[in-house]
């Protein structure tokens, strides 16, 4: 079965900490995405990547960075966590060089910043 694995289901961090959210997919997909989901706001795209070492900003990249050193792994980094980054974070991957076929999502990481 195809799989997108997010390293943590729940995470509690302090304001100012550096936070790493890891995502690994086992489907050899070219495309990977990070979204955050907040009540009433739906899913918002933070960053995405179409290839190794390549990244592009989504709609809300401020306060975040990403790393894609290997095709299967896409990391989201909160350089200095703030309380307004408390959210559900969802990673996804897909195949397709020009258009997206279906996205496969991880189970999500519920991050609380205190």
């Amino acid at each position, binding site marked *: 079965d195809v799989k*997108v694995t997010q390293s943590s289901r729940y995470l509690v961090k302090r304001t100012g900490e550096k936070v790493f959210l890891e995502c690994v997919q086992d489907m050899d997909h070219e*495309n990977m*995405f990070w*979204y955050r989901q907040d009540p*009433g*706001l*739906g*899913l918002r*795209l933070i960053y*995405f990547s*179409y290839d190794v070492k390549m990244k*592009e900003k*989504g*709609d809300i990249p401020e306060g975040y960075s990403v790393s894609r050193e290997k095709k299967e792994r896409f990391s989201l980094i909160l350089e200095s966590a703030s309380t307004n980054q408390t959210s*559900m974070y*969802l990673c*996804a991957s897909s195949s397709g060089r*020009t*258009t*997206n*076929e*279906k*996205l*496969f*999502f*991880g*189970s*999500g990481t*519920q991050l609380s910043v205190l």
Partner: protein
Amino acid sequence: SQQGEEDPQALSIQEGENATMNCSYKTSINNLQWYRQNSGRGLVHLILIRSNEREKHSGRLRVTLDTSKKSSSLLITASRAADTASYFCATDPPRQLTFGSGTQLTVLP
């Protein structure tokens, strides 16, 4: 970014009834996809319909696409309590799929 917008925001029906959700978008698309999300979990892909298709079926799901109206609908027939979830549409382009706030469907036993 282009974004699919789902309507209604919330829908409550009795088990056995049909549920219809709608999605509107703004510009031309290659495909439109529907996803489902159970509470606190990731999204699961349900169905993809391409711009040259008008209707598609998958089990109890029926999706229609009207490119002239820039809209799609998702019909779930003979709903079950287990269909209770949020439903989202997403369009491509943009290649980085964007999602609306979803329709929260509650199926009452």
